[in-house]
């Protein structure tokens, strides 16, 4: 039985299934303001710690707030900002990486040594250090994450630029008179896309893990804003009586990270891309 589960998982179906799951999650969390049953920050102590009901489909927390709504809005923050971090660190990495690869020489060496240093050092400690300087808060955490993540993309893009410089088909395309834009479209992008997508999915998973970890520690999102990590932090006092306060947000985090990781692995196997461990 396990073998057949493996076969399904490793088969072609993984990628579409994961993408669909993530797509659904993105959509419902982004639509949170429209579909959430209640206001996620409305406090009403009278309804404190209630079991699931029609009004509160997943029950309420210790301040009488709707769990489901908080989950949805929390997802909006986690996923939304993970997206933001991905796009911005990608952009920074793209600019610096291509510049470094193009320039070469000592500029390249210095930049890459710097990136190596940052990559080698445990990221959470760097982020915490940065948050320590900037102070606690969601914006600071996002900024810190961006500052740490761009190096991975920079290295990747720089490597690509270097190998593309060597490749013959660029020269051949130039000789045959293709316009610059065509070269980019037909030659560069198909080479760039697979590793980028693989790295992106895995990095998104990490970003969500980091955002929720920081919020859990109390350093990211500040109350009363809902966020999965923060919800776990708040729910921990009720572990004996109402463990579901911690269970739901944790499950969501896991669901998202597992899906991203599965997708990333399947993609990297499919397109033969190396992952950073």
């Amino acid at each position, binding site marked *: 039985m*396990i073998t057949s589960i493996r076969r399904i998982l490793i088969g072609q179906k993984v990628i579409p299934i994961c993408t669909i799951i993530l797509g659904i999650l993105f959509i419902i969390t982004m639509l949170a303001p429209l579909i959430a049953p209640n206001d996620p920050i409305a406090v009403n102590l009278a309804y404190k710690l209630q079991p699931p009901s029609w009004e509160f489909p997943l029950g309420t927390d210790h301040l009488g707030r709707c769990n489901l709504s908080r989950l949805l809005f929390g997802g909006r923050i986690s996923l939304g900002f993970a997206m933001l971090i991905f796009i911005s660190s990608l952009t920074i990495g793209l600019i610096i990486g291509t510049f470094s690869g193009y320039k070469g020489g000592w500029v390249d060496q210095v930049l890459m040594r710097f990136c190596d240093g940052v990559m080698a050092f445990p990221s959470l400690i760097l982020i915490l*250090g940065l948050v*320590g300087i900037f*102070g606690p808060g969601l914006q600071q955490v996002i900024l810190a994450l961006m500052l740490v993540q761009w190096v991975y993309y920079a290295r990747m893009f720089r490597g690509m630029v270097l190998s593309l410089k060597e490749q013959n088909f660029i020269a051949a395309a130039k000789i045959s008179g293709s316009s610059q834009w065509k070269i980019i479209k037909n030659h560069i992008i198909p080479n760039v896309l697979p590793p980028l997508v693989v790295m992106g999915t895995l990095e998104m998973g990490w970003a969500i893990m980091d955002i929720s*970890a920081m919020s859990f520690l*109390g350093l990211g999102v500040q109350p009363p804003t809902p966020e999965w990590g923060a919800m776990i932090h708040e729910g921990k006092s009720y572990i004996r009586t109402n463990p579901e306060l911690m269970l739901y947000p944790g499950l969501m985090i896991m669901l998202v990270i597992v899906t991203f990781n599965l997708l990333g692995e399947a993609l990297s196997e499919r397109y033969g891309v190396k992952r950073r461990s």
Partner: protein
Amino acid sequence: MGTFIIKRIMSIIPVFLLAALLTTGMIHLSPVDPAEAYLTAAHIEPTDEILAQKRHEFGLDQPFFMQYVNTIKKICQLDFGISYVSNKPVWDEVIHRIPATLQLALGSLFLAVLVSVPLGFFAGVKKNSAIDHFSRLLSFFGASIPSFWLGYILIFFFSVKMDLFPVEGIGTWQHLVLPSVTLALPLIAMYTRLLRTSILENLQEPYVLFARTRGIKEKTIMAKHILRIAISPMITGLGMNLGKLLTGTIIVETVFSWPGFGRYFIEAIFNRDIPIIQCYVLVAASLFILSNLMVDLIQMYIDPRISRKEGQQR
């Protein structure tokens, strides 16, 4: 061999200088004036006079380069300044808390190696067996589960429901179990996978065939020949991921109220206790560099090719 060690230790120095530079710079990057933060924490009204005096005390009115040099001098004397919060020397506070973190870290590392080596070994040797599938599942979920959540799940089942282990705090070996497991799981996930891959690769190598043709027992080939070579990437991985261990202690200590350096670091961030933050980052960087060195040394011992080649290159 000796030259190698010396050379490596020498290479630590530039990194160290860089870390000191960053530390000095951190103060300036912070939107908060350290003198002001200190005074506020000490509940002293920061008038301009007192502020200027404090800044002079902290050496903040000196040129940047002088500050940098001072920082280095102080670090060499293990003088990291005074905690804003407790008013005691940072180093004393840190030393007081490091043993707890060490205990947790070593316990987890021990557990991780204890589980990963046999698990990874048998997963590789008996590919596609039940053990193999189990290890791959474990590797996958172990890497995906957030450790703070895992900690609470374990607490819920083993402390609250089954009352086997205490919920938090430090003291007996029972206190060590759940935190160690929480910290060890992501490590196990990684090392098991590394070892398994390495073993699978080695199974294809010619030396395995040659050993078989010589009539060596299969068990000996697996346990002695292959394992000794295959374990090398895992050890490299161990060294490179000491960072994960360090990061993990921060979270695990918070979840289990473990009185270690990691939890103290988080408190310092909340309190804007900058000297502590600086100290932590420096200590983390140093530990990191040292552990890489240790890993290299172990590698040299296990695989004689590396040490001889290093020697020959000089």
